[in-house]
C-alpha cells in the first residue's frame, strides 16, 4: 500500500491503454487476486455478488456486471446521467473516457458505464481492479490517474466504512452521513455496491466544493489530507493563481461558517459527512484593480454578486442597478436590442428584492456601457463595489458589556463595531495591542487614547466559545494578511507547542502581490456564466437529485441574518442550470499548473507558507496566545544555545529514565498534527494575539490615527522593507528555555535531577571552570535581550536577577554526546533560586557582547495554563557571518503538581525538533520557589 505501488499500477494502466492485449495478463492476475480477496472477506454478506459472476475470473467484465447488481438494486436501472449528474462529460462516449488526460476532474465516469459497454473496457476494468488491489491511496496521483480508477477509490472508501473496525466512531459518522443522503443521492447508491470490491484500507473521502459560479467540484481525497491539498486542487480546477484571497468554508451546525485551515487535516476540522465546502473570498482586496489577473477579478465579482444578492453586502437601489448593469455587460456584452428582448434581464438576479423598476434601470444603464470588454466591466463593477461600506466586512454577532446586541465586523483596516446598521466604534489595527478570547468572551486591548495613560481592554460576549474563537481567528488572519509583510515565523516550527497556537500561515497580501507580479502567462480563457437567475433553468432537470441534498445542507447552513438561504439556493440552482446548458467552466489546467509551480517558489514559497518561512522575511508581530494567567515571581529558566555542529542530545534525566521516556511519548503525541489540531479546534479556551509591532520596517506603514494635524495626510503608502537574510552554514541558533515553578515540588525535582555522583563531580568541575563565564554570559544574554527587543515587552521575563537567597549554577560542557543533566544537590534551606546552565563548548561569541549588525529581532510569547514561553529570535551579521539565535524562555508557574523535568525535557526536545539544523548550545535552568517549606536533603 505504498504510493509506489500505486504509481506502478498507473503505469501499467497506461500501457494497457496503448496495448490492451499485451497488458491483459496483468489485469487478469489482478482481478483474480481481487476475486480471492473478495471472497474471503465478503462471503457472509455478499452472496449475491458471487452469483452474478459465474464466469471466469479472468474476465474483467464479470466485475463490471456485478456492479449494478450489487448496487442498491435500483441503481442499475438508473440511467447513467442520473447516476452521475455532476459529471461534466456525461455526454461523452465511453472511449473518450479512456483518453482523458483531463480525467482528473471526473472521477466517476466509470459509474456511468453500462454493462453492455463493459466488454470494450476490459483492459480498463482490469486495470481498475489491479489498482484497487494494489493501492489507490495516493492523492497526488489523482490528477494523473484515469477516471476509471476513481470509482475504485470510492469503493475502497466504502469498504473501509463497512469493514474496518478500528474506527467505530468514524464509521458511524460515515454511515449516518450516508443514510441521510441516500434517498436523494444516487452517488451514494453507487457506493453501496462498493463493499464487494477490493477491500482497501486506503481511506478516501469525497469532497464537494461549491464554486462561485454555482457549479460543484468534487474529488476524492485521502482521508488524512490537509486542507491545502483540497484548496490547491480547487484552485487548479479554477485556473486561479492569485489564490491567497480565497479560502474554503464549511458550515457547522446551521449558521457557523468556518474556514478550512490549510495547514491541518481536513478530517480534524470538519466533523460531518459529507465533506462539503464552499469556495469563497476570504480576504477582500481593498483595491481590486491591483489584482494581477482578470480571472481573479472575475471570481471576486462572482463572490460580490453573491454577497449582494444574499443581502450580506447592502447597497442602494441605484448601486444595485449600476452593478447589475456591469454584470450584464460582462456576461452578455453590448446591449443588443434584437437579442436582448425585454426578458433577457430577468434571467439575472441583481438584488435580494429585485423589482421591475430596478430591472428597467439596469437595462437603461447597460445600454450606456457599450464597448466595455467583460474584463473592463468587471473592473468597473469592482470599482463601485469596493466603495460600499460593508465591502469585505466579516460580521459576527456579539453583545457588548451591557448585553446589548451588536455586530463585530472584521475588515482589512481593523475591527468595526455596529449596532444595527450603525457604526458605533472602530478600532484600526494599529490601535489594537492585543486580541484575545477566553471562553465565549472576546477581548481587544487598545492603545491609550491621546490623552489617556492606560491601555484599555474591551470585552465582548460572543454566543459561545466557538464563535469567540472563530472571531479571534478571523482577526488574527486579517491582521496578518493585510498588515504584515510576512506571516509570523512560529509557523515554521513548533515553538509554541506548549500553548494553544493559531496563526495565519498563508501568504500575506504583500507577499501575494509580490508573487502575482511574477505571474507570466497569457490571460487564461474563462467563460462567464453565473448570475443567471435560477428559476428558469430549473424546470425538468432530473439533474437536481444529487444537488438537492446539497441544497438542503447548504441552505440550512447559509450564513447571515438575511436572505442568505435564498441566495445559496439560487447559486445552487444556477449550478444546475449551467449543467443543463452544458457550459461548465472548464479550463485546461495543465499550463496553469506549471505556471503555478514556477511562481510558487519564486515568490517565497508555496502559500502554505508554514514550512518555508525561514528563508523569507522575518516577522514583525508578536503573537501571544495564552492559556491563562501566569503569575510571575517564581521562575525557572532554561537557556539553550544551539550550534550547528554540536549535536547535543540534551536529555533530562530526572533520576528516572522512564520519565524521559514518558516524556518523549507524550511529546510526540502532542506534536502530531492530529492531537494538536483537534485540541486546537475544540479545547482551546483562550487565545491571544498581539498585533504588536516590534520592528517597524516590517509592518506595512501604520496609518496614523488621531492627533496629528489632519492636513498632513500621509496616505497609506506602504513602506515595504524586508530584511531578507540568508543564513549561512554554521549559523547559530540559540534557544533559551525558561522554566519556572512555584511550589516546593520544584525543589524536589531539582534534587531528583541531581542524581548521579559522577555528574555531581562533573558539575562541580564545570562550575569551577565556567561559573564566571556563565554568569557573565547570563548577563550578556539579558543584555542581548534588551538591545534586541526594539520594543521591550513586559512579557519578556528576565531571570538574571532574582531575589536570590541561594544560587546554584551548573555547567556541563559536552557538545557531542548525550548529556545527563544533573544538578548538584544543595542543602536547601529555603531555596529561592536555582540556576543550571548547560552549555556546549563550541559556544563561541554567540553570547558575547559584540552584537554585530542586528538584522532582525522578534519575540514571540505564548502562554498556557501554567507556562509562558517567550521565544526570542535574533538575526545578526557578525564579520560576514550571519547568525540566527533563538532563545526560548519557558516560565512555568503554578501548582506543585507540574512535572518540571518533563516540561523541560519536552521543551528541549521541541527546540531540537523545530530546528534540526541547529543545535542546542546552552540550557539554563533557573528555578525559583517561594519560601519553600522543607526540602529533603
Amino acid at each position, binding site marked *: 500500500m505504498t504510493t509506489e505501488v500505486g504509481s506502478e499500477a498507473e503505469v501499467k494502466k497506461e500501457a494497457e491503454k496503448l496495448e490492451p492485449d499485451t497488458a491483459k495478463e496483468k489485469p487478469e492476475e489482478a482481478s483474480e487476486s481481487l476475486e480471492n480477496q473478495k471472497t474471503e472477506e465478503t462471503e457472509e454478506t455478499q452472496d449475491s455478488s458471487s452469483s452474478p459472476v459465474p464466469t471466469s475470473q479472468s474476465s474483467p467484465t464479470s466485475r463490471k456486471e456485478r456492479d449494478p447488481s450489487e448496487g442498491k438494486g435500483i441503481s442499475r436501472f438508473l440511467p447513467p446521467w442520473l447516476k452521475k449528474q455532476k459529471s461534466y462529460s456525461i455526454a461523452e462516449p465511453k472511449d473518450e473516457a479512456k483518453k482523458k488526460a483531463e480525467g482528473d476532474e471526473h472521477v466517476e465516469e466509470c459509474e456511468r458505464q453500462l454493462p453492455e459497454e463493459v466488454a470494450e473496457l476490459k483492459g480498463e476494468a482490469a486495470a481498475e481492479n489491479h489498482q484497487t488491489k494494489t493501492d489507490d491511496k495516493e492523492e497526488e496521483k489523482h490528477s494523473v490517474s484515469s477516471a476509471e480508477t476513481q470509482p475504485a477509490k470510492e469503493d475502497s472508501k466504502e469498504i473501509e466504512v463497512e469493514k474496518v473496525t478500528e474506527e467505530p466512531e468514524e464509521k458511524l459518522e460515515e454511515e449516518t452521513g450516508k443514510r441521510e443522503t441516500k434517498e436523494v443521492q444516487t452517488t451514494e447508491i453507487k457506493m453501496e455496491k462498493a463493499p464487494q470490491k477490493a477491500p482497501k484500507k486506503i481511506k478516501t473521502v469525497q469532497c464537494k466544493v461549491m464554486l462561485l459560479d454555482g457549479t460543484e467540484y468534487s474529488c476524492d481525497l485521502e482521508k488524512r489530507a490537509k486542507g491545502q491539498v483540497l484548496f490547491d486542487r480547487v484552485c487548479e480546477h479554477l485556473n486561479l493563481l492569485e489564490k491567497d484571497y480565497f479560502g474554503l468554508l464549511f458550515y457547522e451546525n446551521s449558521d457557523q461558517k468556518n474556514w478550512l485551515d490549510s495547514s491541518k487535516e481536513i478530517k480534524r476540522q470538519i466533523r460531518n459527512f459529507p465533506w462539503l465546502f464552499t469556495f469563497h473570498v476570504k480576504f477582500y482586496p481593498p483595491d481590486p484593480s491591483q489584482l494581477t489577473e482578470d480571472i481573479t477579478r472575475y471570481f471576486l465579482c462572482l463572490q460580490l454578486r453573491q454577497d449582494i444578492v444574499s443581502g450580506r453586502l*447592502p*447597497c*442602494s*437601489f*441605484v*448601486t444595485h442597478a449600476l452593478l447589475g448593469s456591469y454584470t450584464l455587460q460582462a456576461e452578455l456584452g453590448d446591449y443588443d436590442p434584437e437579442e436582448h428582448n425585454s426578458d433577457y434581464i430577468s434571467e439575472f438576479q441583481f438584488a435580494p428584492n429585485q423589482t421591475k423598476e430596478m430591472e428597467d*434601470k439596469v437595462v437603461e444603464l447597460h445600454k450606456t456601457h457599450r464597448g466595455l470588454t467583460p474584463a473592463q466591466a468587471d473592473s468597473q463593477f469592482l470599482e463601485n463595489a469596493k*466603495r*460600499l*461600506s460593508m465591502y469585505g466586512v466579516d460580521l459576527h454577532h456579539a453583545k457588548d458589556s451591557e448585553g446589548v446586541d451588536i455586530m463585530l465586523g472584521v475588515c482589512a*483596516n481593523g475591527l468595526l463595531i455596529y*449596532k*444595527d*446598521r*450603525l*457604526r*458605533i*466604534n*472602530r478600532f*484600526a489595527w494599529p490601535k489594537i495591542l492585543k486580541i484575545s478570547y477566553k471562553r465565549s468572551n472576546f477581548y481587544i486591548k487598545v492603545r491609550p*487614547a*491621546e490623552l489617556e495613560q492606560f491601555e484599555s481592554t474591551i470585552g465582548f460576549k460572543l454566543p459561545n466559545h466557538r464563535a469567540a474563537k472563530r472571531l479571534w481567528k478571523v482577526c488574527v488572519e486579517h491582521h496578518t494578511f493585510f498588515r504584515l509583510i510576512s506571516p509570523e515565523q512560529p509557523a515554521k516550527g513548533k515553538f509554541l507547542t506548549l500553548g494553544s497556537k493559531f496563526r495565519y500561515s498563508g501568504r500575506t497580501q504583500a507577499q501575494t502581490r509580490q508573487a502575482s507580479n511574477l505571474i507570466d502567462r497569457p490571460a487564461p480563457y474563462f467563460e462567464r456564466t453565473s448570475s443567471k437567475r435560477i428559476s428558469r433553468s430549473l424546470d425538468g432537470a432530473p439533474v437536481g437529485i444529487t444537488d438537492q441534498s446539497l441544497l438542503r445542507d447548504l441552505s440550512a447552513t447559509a450564513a447571515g441574518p438575511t436572505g442568505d438561504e435564498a441566495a445559496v439556493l439560487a447559486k445552487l440552482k444556477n449550478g444546475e442550470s449551467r449543467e443543463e446548458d452544458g457550459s461548465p467552466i472548464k479550463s485546461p489546467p495543465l499550463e496553469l499548473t506549471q505556471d503555478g509551480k514556477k511562481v510558487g517558489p519564486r515568490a517565497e514559497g508555496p502559500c502554505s507558507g508554514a514550512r518555508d518561512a525561514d528563508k523569507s522575511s522575518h516577522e514583525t508581530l508578536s503573537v501571544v496566545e495564552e492559556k491563562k494567567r501566569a503569575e510571575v515571581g517564581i521562575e525557572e529558566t532554561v537557556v539553550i544555545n544551539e550550534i550547528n555542529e554540536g549535536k547535543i542530545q540534551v536529555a533530562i534525566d530526572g533520576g528516572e529514565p522512564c520519565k524521559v521516556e514518558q516524556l518523549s511519548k507524550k511529546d510526540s503525541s502532542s506534536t502530531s498534527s492530529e492531537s494538536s489540531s483537534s485540541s486546537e479546534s475544540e479545547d482551546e479556551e483562550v487565545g491571544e494575539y498581539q498585533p504588536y509591532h516590534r520592528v517597524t520596517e516590517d509592518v506595512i506603514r501604520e*496609518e496614523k*490615527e*488621531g492627533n496629528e*494635524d*489632519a*492636513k498632513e*495626510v500621509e*496616505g497609506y503608502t506602504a513602506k515595504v522593507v524586508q530584511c531578507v537574510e540568508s543564513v549561512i552554514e554554521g549559523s547559530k541558533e540559540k534557544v533559551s528555555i525558561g522554566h519556572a515553578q512555584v511550589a516546593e515540588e520544584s525543589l524536589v525535582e531539582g534534587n531528583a535531577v541531581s542524581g548521579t555522583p559522577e555528574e555531581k563531580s562533573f558539575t562541580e568541575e564545570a562550575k569551577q571552570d565556567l561559573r564566571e563565564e556563565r554568569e557573565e554570559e547570563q548577563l550578556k544574554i539579558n543584555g542581548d535581550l534588551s538591545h534586541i527587543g526594539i520594543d521591550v515587552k513586559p512579557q519578556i521575563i528576565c531571570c538574571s536577577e532574582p531575589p536570590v537567597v541561594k544560587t546554584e549554577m551548573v555547567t556541563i560542557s559536552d557538545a557531542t554526546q548525550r548529556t545527563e543533566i544533573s544538578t548538584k544537590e544543595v542543602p536547601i534551606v529555603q531555596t529561592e533560586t536555582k540556576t543550571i546552565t548547560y552549555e556546549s563548548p563550541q559556544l563561541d561569541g554567540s553570547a558575547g557582547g559584540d552584537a554585530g549588525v542586528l538584522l532582525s529581532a522578534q519575540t514571540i510569547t505564548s502562554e498556557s495554563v501554567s507556562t509562558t514561553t517567550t521565544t526570542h529570535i535574533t538575526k545578526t551579521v557578525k564579520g560576514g557571518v550571519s547568525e540566527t539565535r533563538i532563545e526560548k524562555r519557558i516560565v512555568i508557574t503554578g501548582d506543585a503538581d507540574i512535572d518540571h523535568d518533563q516540561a523541560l525535557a519536552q521543551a528541549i526536545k521541541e527546540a531540537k525538533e523545530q530546528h534540526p539544523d541547529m543545535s542546542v548550545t546552552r540550557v539554563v535552568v533557573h528555578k525559583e520557589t517561594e519560601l519553600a517549606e522543607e526540602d529533603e536533603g
Partner: protein
Amino acid sequence: RQGAAHHAVVRALPESVCQQALRVEKGGAVDFARAEREHQLYVGVLRHKLGLQVLELPADESLPDCVFVEDAAVVCEETALLTRPGAPSRRKEVTEAMKIALESLNLNVVEMTDENATLDGGDVLFTGREFFVGLSKRTNQRGAEILADTFKDYAVSTVPVHDSLHLKSFCSMAGPNLIAIGSSEGAQKALKTMQQMSDHRYDKLTIPDDAAANCLYLNIPNKGHVLLHRAPEEYPESAKVFEKLKDHMLIPIANIELQKVDGALTCCCILINKTSEL
C-alpha cells in the same frame, strides 16, 4: 462629487421666527427685516451667483423654524429622507409641500415614520464618503438607524453631541475631504470621534469660532470650489482662516439675525445634485 449641486430647496422665513422660534439660549430679539434681508442675500447667492435652480417654499407662520429646511430632509444622490425632527413643534415642517418639492426633482423620497425615531438634518454630516450622525437632543439612535437603512451604500457612524444643538453647529464640509471644525472642546472631541470611526483620512480646517465652522461648500461647474462662510464682521478670526483657502471662491455671508435662533449657513438650504436622469 462632494458639494456638487444643481438645485437647492429653501423656504421663506415667517414672522413668527422672531418670537416663537426655538433657541438654545436667550439672546437678542431677531430683527425680522434684517433677517429677511440676510436670507434674501443668501438665496440670491445660490440662485444668481452660483446659478442653482432654487426652489423656494412659502413661509408658514405656524412653523416658526421652517426656514431651516436642512433639518427636514437629508438628500444624498437620488434619495431624499424626510426626517422626523426632534422638536415636536417642528414635525409639521416635513409637510406635503416639502415632499412634493423633492419628488418634483425626481428624488426617491423616503419618509421616516417610526414614532420612536427623531432626526434633524443638522445632525447629519455627509462627507462624500460616509455619514456622521450626531446623537443630540434632537436626534436619536433610531433616527440614525433609519438613515443608515436609507443610504445603504455608506457607512453611518454616530457621534455623541453634548454641548451643542446639532453636530453641524460646530462643523461642516469645507471642501472635498476637508472638514471645517470649531475649536471648542466639544467640537474637537467630536472630530476625534469621527476620525476614529472613519476608514478615510480627512483634512481638517480648524476654525476659531464654532459657529463659523458651519460653512456651505459647493462644487459648481466652471466655478470650482465655492465656499459660503461667515462674514469677517461677525467672526474676524475665523474669516481669516477661510481666507487661507486659496483654491476656493470665498463668499462671506452675514447670518447675524438667524444665528440668534440657532440658524447657521447650512441650515437654510437643501442642496440637490441630480446626477442622472433618474
